């Protein structure tokens, strides 16, 4: 069965410093991986996805993510964090092997970016 884990509920970072939000996954076959962001009282917004190809994926708002097959990880990164990046970030995975349609979301990580 597919699963996704975000080991940190919150990460603290100073504005201007690099931001990393961690995600690991487990699937039977090839993974389809996504990152979404959620602002207060809003739905989730798509940031980026990995389907195949280059391990480094670039997305919206200056975010990127690195797919690492050997470590089954898909960490979200931003070179220089902004206070406005303080939101809730969800990693999501769908198993490409089973032919199933379900996307599983992690519990979310909240970066606290301090000015």
């Amino acid at each position, binding site marked *: 069965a597919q699963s996704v884990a975000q080991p940190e509920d919150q990460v603290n970072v100073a504005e201007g410093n690099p931001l990393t939000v961690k995600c690991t996954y487990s699937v039977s076959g090839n993974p389809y991986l996504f990152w*979404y962001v959620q602002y207060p009282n809003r739905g989730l917004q*798509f940031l980026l996805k990995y*389907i195949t190809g280059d391990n480094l994926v670039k997305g919206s708002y200056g975010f990127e993510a690195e797919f690492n097959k050997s470590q089954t990880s898909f960490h979200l990164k931003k070179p220089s964090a902004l206070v406005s990046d303080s939101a809730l970030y969800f990693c999501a995975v769908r198993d490409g092997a089973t032919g199933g349609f379900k996307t599983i979301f992690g519990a979310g990580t909240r970066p606290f970016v301090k000015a």
Partner: protein
Amino acid sequence: EAGVAQSPRYKIIEKRQSVAFWCNPISGHATLYWYQQILGQGPKLLIQFQNNGVVDDSQLPKDRFSAERLKGVDSTLKIQPAKLEDSAVYLCASSLGSRGGSPQPQHFGDGTRLSIL
């Protein structure tokens, strides 16, 4: 393009009452999802439609929850009777499904926040 529309935004009911939520997906999106998001958790899929057919409802508590998408466009999710544990945000999302075997991202509405007293 217009986003996913959901109503109402907020609903407060007493336990054992019934409630319904409405969702209008992005035009042309064949796939529609209903999620339950409990405070502090990620969204949990309740039901997924492809056009007007159910693809996955394995986590839908069918003794009290029901959903329909009769014409393959908008959808309603109903809870009857509600329990205290149903307090959550109910999110609707839509997507183009898959293109060339590649799953497309989901577009979410702003959700309905349900409080059960």
